């Protein structure tokens, strides 16, 4: 490590050597705020008409070399009016900038990395600063975006090292992917999941089915979770096709555009150290009962003479996993491990299973700049534990960015990021057979630590090498699973690009960029012998590689047609090549029971190869931006894609967009007495979308395994379609932006309407046709919505300030049309058959259908669930809201974020199972006295008079899914940070030091669901939204940040 660091320092030195080439005149000075005289760091200083620039350092000092004495320096800084000063032979220029009363000069990064003045945009872009996502960190960057952008929805799932689902403005596609495209420094990054892992969600049909729930799904990481928050300068969220049209096919679902840090153009070496130490605990756990213990129908245990140590694998498995036994009265009873013990409640046994997890993330960065360019190196180390034992993550991220002005016209910008992550046991926690099923449902008198004795000890005799469980064969032992049922993942990723920019003259510039993203994933899943499933043991080794290579160019021309009419034209092209390949080896039955590697397997299945699959998309695009008199802006863009995944006839497709922005101050409030900004905007756009490789021609597959040593060939259940056309997403958007009272109050409002047609979809067809699916272009899905962002600078005095912002977004998704003969499509059915997640014509994606109580009881008085599935809700929330606040008082700051998710439903299979097992607090009802369910008894056809026990009642209730459809409504204190800027002077070369106390997911202000966090979904695919089943508890993390800059 130290060696590496030394080498890198050497590299930095080599690059820095360029600064030795001096130019003619050196000017230096200090930039201050005109109102308070405080120095301003980060101000851009530019020699007008050139790319030559500098940035002020922490003390507001700058140094710049200019080519001649007649140069003009431009000083610009967000929130301040730009100033120009002629050099005129001066060598020291001190300047004070005035705070801008207009705020019109805000610059945002738009598609293709083009910086634009926000006021000129005819579509919605939300920018999030780097500080906003790296103060309160999570292992997954996506988590830090939650609640900060109107229209952005993040769903979490799975355990440490798992991915999130990110959608912007709802679900546009019927199929698996409606997720946003992630673009880092102009290069789209791969968000594909490895062939194993995520694939386990998809157990039947094609990927378009959205995946059927698995018994113990395991959700892979990848995509945005590999990006290091500390390297982020800013994030632009381009919502919908209007903003993203220039990214083409993949951008139909919006783009998250991440701009990473460059070195600042300061002459001194800047060093910063950021370290974060945090502690994670479950935010909350379901509520359990503590009155009744293990057993069924009131009997403590079914078979008290059970001896797990004599379990030969064939004998007795009869200890009940249920907590429907007798009262936990402390009487001496036989315990599951053969002891005799007091039969008493273990009220914290679930809580005891989890541990406090520590997470430490440290970033060291070094940067240096000069008029020749800048360089920045950062290293981040993340070492995180999970709240479950034997599961942790460690990653190292190396990032080197160098910008070099080779001449006054030629700039080279290069970045390389190497990311390596090891997840030790990304545990399969969710699902009916996931780890937590056996934790949440453990009988109420079981002592957690007793389960640590989980393995019978004789590997020489396989039947004596078994898992010890609290309920014999009726449950798993969670500790056994943690230590013997493992899922290790290693990811190595390289992201890099080189961009060459050339300024031909003052109106024409061009850049060429080539970038790559290579991800290597190695999965190793092991089930050791002796477990409750795959008793002889099982292991899987997967290796997959994903690459993406983008080569592109962009030519930009600016021209002032008249004084008032300016034109900027861009023409560009992109060649994108994406590949995937992989190998998978799996087998069962370990020869020697204590060791787990492939050579030790008795039965190795033929390796599966996914040969190199290549997808290429070539594109040409252009845009023209017209600005008239600084108040009227018109953008038009066009793009043509050629995709290798479509047939020759359909391969080439073009789509266009147009947008208008008008600043109406001139007409309404020219003196800016109330409004300092009145902007209206509108846009229409279209984006085409292609498909994956090999979707056109019908072929046969040969099974690697064969059968009895014979070659076997199979036909595909999907009827492919050589005439597949691209999907088209059409969107229109209208917006209003207001700035009031000197920008003390701002409003940004958007109304949009999106429609996706010709969706490429595997239409389920009757199997009698000879196929299970027919791949066609079908249907139409629309998303309509409103987004409102309000900002207010409530107080802004010398010592005290309070800024607040509020957003609201509402989206309505509708399936306008499917296809003739198909009114509804079931993404999947929950494992218990309780609910179906479907897409129904006239409904919306993620409609939840399930069973209701018929109002009848059977002869015995047990409530009867309906056969038919009734619409019970929808997985998509109605609206999302967020309220963030920042207070500063002298050197103290306090900020918090409260966010809300309202509307939408979720089926808690967790709760249904807890009720059936008698562990939930709810299940105490009717235990003592039983209940006569008020309904019609089908045997007597009169009012039911038959009494049933609590166990029968709750078992019946658990099969009636409407009981467990919860509203997703919840409001939580998502983030809180309290910071203090330590006055350090310049001791030890310190420039600044801040400490922050940070917290995430601190508490709910409201949560309508029992037992679960409605944001914790079953998986990331579209078909499992609206289901929650033994999800990992949401983490409440509290931590400390220390940021030092030298």
């Amino acid at each position, binding site marked *: 490590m130290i060696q590496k660091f030394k080498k890198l320092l050497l590299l930095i030195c080599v690059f820095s050597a360029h600064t030795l080439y001096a130019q003619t005149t050196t000017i230096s000075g200090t930039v201050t705020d005109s109102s308070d005289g405080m120095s301003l760091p980060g101000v851009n200083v530019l020699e007008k008409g050139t790319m030559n620039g500098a940035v002020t350092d922490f003390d507001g000092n700058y140094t710049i070399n200019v080519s001649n004495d007649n140069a003009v320096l431009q000083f610009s800084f967000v929130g301040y009016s730009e100033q120009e000063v002629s050099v005129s032979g001066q060598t020291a220029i001190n300047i004070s900038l005035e705070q801008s009363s207009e705020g019109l000069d805000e610059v945002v990064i738009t598609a293709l990395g083009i910086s634009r003045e926000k006021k000129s945009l005819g579509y919605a872009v939300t920018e999030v600063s780097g500080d906003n996502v790296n103060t309160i960190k999570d292992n997954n960057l996506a988590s830090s975006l939650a609640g900060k952008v109107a229209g952005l929805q993040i769903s979490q799932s799975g355990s440490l090292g798992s991915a999130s689902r990110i959608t912007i403005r709802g679900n546009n596609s019927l199929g698996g992917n409606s997720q946003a495209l992630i673009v880092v420094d102009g290069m789209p990054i791969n968000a594909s999941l490895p062939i194993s892992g995520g694939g386990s969600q998809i157990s039947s049909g094609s990927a378009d089915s959205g995946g059927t729930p698995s018994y113990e799904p395991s959700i892979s990481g990848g995509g945005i979770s590999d990006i290091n928050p500390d390297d982020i300068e800013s994030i632009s969220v381009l919502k919908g096709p209007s903003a993203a049209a220039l990214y083409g096919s993949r951008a139909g679902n919006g783009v998250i555009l991440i701009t990473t840090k460059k070195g600042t153009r300061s002459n001194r070496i800047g060093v910063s150290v950021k370290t974060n130490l945090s502690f994670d605990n479950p935010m909350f756990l379901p509520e359990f009962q503590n009155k009744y213990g293990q057993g069924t129908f009131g*009997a403590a245990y079914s078979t008290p003479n059970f001896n797990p140590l004599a379990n030969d694998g064939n004998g007795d498995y009869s200890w009940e996993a249920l907590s429907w036994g007798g009262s936990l009265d402390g009487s001496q009873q036989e315990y599951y491990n053969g002891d005799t013990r007091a039969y008493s409640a273990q009220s914290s046994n679930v809580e005891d299973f989890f541990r406090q997890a520590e997470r430490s993330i440290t970033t060291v960065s070094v940067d240096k700049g000069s008029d020749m360019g800048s360089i920045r190196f950062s290293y981040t180390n993340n070492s995180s534990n999970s709240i479950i034992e034997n599961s942790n993550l460690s990653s190292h991220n190396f990032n080197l960015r160098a910008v070099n002005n080779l001449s006054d016209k030629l700039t080279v910008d290069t970045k390389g990021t190497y990311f390596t992550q090891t997840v030790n046991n990304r545990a399969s926690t969710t699902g009916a057979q996931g780890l937590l099923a056996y934790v949440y449902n453990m009988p109420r008198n079981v002592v957690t630590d007793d389960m640590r004795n989980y393995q019978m000890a004789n590997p020489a005799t396989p039947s004596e090498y078994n898992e010890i469980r609290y309920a014999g064969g009726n449950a798993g032992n969670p500790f056994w699973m943690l230590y013997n049922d493992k899922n290790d993942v290693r990811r190595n990723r390289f992201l890099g690009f080189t961009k060459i920019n050339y300024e031909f003259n003052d109106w024409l510039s061009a850049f060429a960029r080539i970038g790559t993203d290579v991800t290597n994933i190695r999965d190793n899943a092991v089930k050791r012998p002796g477990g409750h499933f795959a008793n002889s043991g099982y292991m899987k080794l997967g290796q997959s590689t994903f690459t993406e290579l983008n080569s592109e160019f962009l030519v930009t021309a600016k021209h002032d047609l008249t004084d008032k009419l300016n034109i900027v034209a861009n023409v560009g092209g992109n060649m994108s090549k994406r590949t995937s390949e992989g190998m998978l080896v799996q087998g069962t039955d370990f020869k020697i029971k204590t060791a787990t590697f492939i050579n030790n397997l008795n039965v190795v299945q033929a390796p599966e190869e996914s040969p190199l699959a290549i997808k290429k998309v070539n594109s040409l695009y252009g845009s023209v931006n017209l600005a008239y008199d600084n108040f009227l802006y018109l953008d038009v863009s066009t793009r043509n894609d050629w995709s290798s995944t479509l047939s020759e006839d359909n391969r080439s497709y073009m789509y266009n967009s147009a947008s208008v922005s008008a600043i109406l101050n001139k007409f309404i409030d020219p003196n800016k007495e109330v409004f300092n900004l009145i902007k209206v905007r509108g846009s229409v756009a279209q984006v085409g979308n292609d498909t994956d490789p090999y979707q056109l021609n019908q072929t046969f597959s040969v099974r690697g395994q064969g059968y009895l040593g014979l070659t076997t060939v199979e036909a595909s259940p999907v009827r492919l379609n050589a005439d597949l056309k691209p999907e088209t997403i059409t969107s229109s958007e209208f917006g209003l932006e207001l700035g009031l009272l000197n920008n003390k109050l701002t409003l940004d409002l958007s109304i949009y309407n999106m429609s996706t047609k010709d969706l490429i979809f595997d239409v389920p067809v009757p199997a*009698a046709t000879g196929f299970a699916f027919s791949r066609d272009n079908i249907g139409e899905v629309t998303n309509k919505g409103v987004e409102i962002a309000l900002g207010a600078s409530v107080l802004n005095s010398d010592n005290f300030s309070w800024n607040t912002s509020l957003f609201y977004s509402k989206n309505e998704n509708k399936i306008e049309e499917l296809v003739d003969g198909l009114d509804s499509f079931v993404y999947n059915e929950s494992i218990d058959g309780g609910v179906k997640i479907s897409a129904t014509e006239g409904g919306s994606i993620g409609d939840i259908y399930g069973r209701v109580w018929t109002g009848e009881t*059977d002869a015995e008085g047990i409530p009867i669930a309906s056969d038919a599935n009734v619409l019970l809700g929808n997985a998509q929330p109605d609206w999302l809201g967020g309220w963030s606040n920042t207070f500063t008082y002298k050197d103290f700051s306090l900020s918090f974020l409260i966010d809300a998710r309202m509307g939408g439903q979720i089926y808690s299979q967790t709760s249904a199972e807890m009720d059936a097992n008698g562990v939930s607090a709810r299940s105490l009802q009717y235990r003592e006295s039983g209940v006569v369910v008020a309904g019609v008894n089908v045997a007597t056809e009169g009012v039911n008079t038959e009494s049933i026990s609590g166990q029968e009642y709750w078992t019946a209730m658990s099969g009636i899914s409407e009981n467990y459809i919860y509203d997703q409504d919840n409001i939580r204190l998502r983030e809180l940070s309290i910071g203090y800027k330590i006055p350090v002077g310049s001791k030890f070369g310190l420039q600044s030091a801040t400490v922050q106390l940070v917290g995430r997911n601190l508490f709910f202000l409201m949560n309508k669901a029992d037992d679960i966090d409605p944001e914790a979904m079953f998986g990331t695919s579209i078909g499992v939204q609206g289901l929650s089943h033994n999800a990992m508890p949401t983490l409440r993390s509290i931590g400390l940040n220390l940021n030092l800059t030298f």
Partner: protein
Amino acid sequence: MKNKILIMASIILATVFSCTDDFNEINEQPDALTSSDVSAKYFVTTLQQKLYRSTTVPLWYGDLLHPDQFCGQWAMGHSSYAWNGDFGWDYFSVLTDLGSWDWYAGYNTNLTAYLNLVKEGGPLENDQYYALGLVMKGLYYHAFTDTFGNIPYSQASDLSVELPQFDAQIDIYRGIISDLDLAISIIGDNTITGAGVDQLGENDVIFNGNMQNWKQLANSLKLRIALRASGSPGEDFSANAASEAIASGVLADNDALFEAFADETDIWGGSASYGDVWHNFPTARWKISEAMMNVLKQSNDPRLGEIAKPSVGGTITILKPTDGENVSLIPDHVAFLQSTLDGAGLVLGTDYTWTETATDLTITMPDNTNYVGIPSRLSGKIKTYMEGNLFSDPSDIVTQQTNQGSPIFPTIVMTSADSHFMIAEAIVKGLVSGDANTYYQLGLQKAMALWNTATSSDFLASEMGSLNGSSEQNLERIATQRWLANYTNGYEAWAIVRDTGYPTSAVITSNNNDIISFAGELNGAYPQRLQYGSSVYTSNAANAEAAVSAQGPDKMATSLWFAN
């Protein structure tokens, strides 16, 4: 000048970026085959394997939970079983869909692709392969319709029909017979499918490419269908079909078995044996049912020790419940357990001891000695009394896991035993003439041989040993033996019970829901079919609803045409 360069550059770039020369090539899947790469024989193996050695899920959720239980040969519901005894006796969409409907319906993909390849004018045209395909098609549709009733048949596999209608079972039977007739005539005297790459040989896992065996199998299936149709409303073909089939020659010496194997390693995606469920999911183990055990014991059947293992026995203590509704049921439950042991022919004091106190019940039994079947269809309420060690497991050859080097009982497609029993049945029913008892006893020999035993004098002396009773008694014996000969082939064994009503002990219906499962909509009735997969109501709704109105409610209790 500069502008010209720019224009030139733009043209060059436009050419480069719209260049799609290699696009067709890279979009061809390297690990896929086209019809020119393949031979029909590779599909034959797939067709056989997909129908007879399903993957773990259909074997478990389908065979084990439904037909194998419903036919009364195996039962779950003992205390060591993970789920309640009700499991499988109530409609549970996930189990029916994944276990049976999807598996059967999905089979059609490979069948259709195969028939299209080998049919006249197809890329791999070959009439013998086509005939074999028709026999596989017949086997498939017969099992499929006997499980669900009306299903798409006449309009199936027709690319021009997107929403095929469901056909009445009688029409499906007629269609299968006509396909079989075609297959029989195409095969004629042919013995092989062709030479070289066309020679089927070992890729035919059932008959090693012997087309005459396929012809016999076709005739046996035709006879089976004729007998099942016989007496059902509106049928007029069974007598003719039965006599034609017998005259043309059914399986006489050969069994159509799908041999077990020792080297199948793809237990997740490939095929599975019962043993893979048994050993990988130890909580899903089943017992020999009371019905089958008692049939075997009462006739001193020599197969008993081959089919079943003695119960583990030992000292077994069962705690009585202290709380809740089950307290009042203690006397009933205890009495039922004791009557079960007595019903198995065990003698109190000799074969077991019984000590009952106010709080518990202790039974001792010698280790590995008694044969006791467990009653089928037990309610979850009595589960804790049904201590696993009291009851007999299936023999090791049935529960043998794959890849362990030990023999596994083969999957039954059609046995010569069944062929002989069916001839006897045709004679007793008066469809053909002949000496029924001769065929019956030949069938017995073949059936015993399947389990490596021979008929014993004890057995021949039992009621079951010969057809010497009334016509109805003889039909009962034939049905019972056909049912036993199809042990481990639950779909067919269940169809025999539904068609004939025998053995009567297998038809467990009840109104005592404290002991027998009254679960769900069956409400105590005997299951007559499985419900359609839920996908038909989303992908082919109008036709499915038409089928329901023609056939009766889409419920397990709705009797199928052949059972009427």
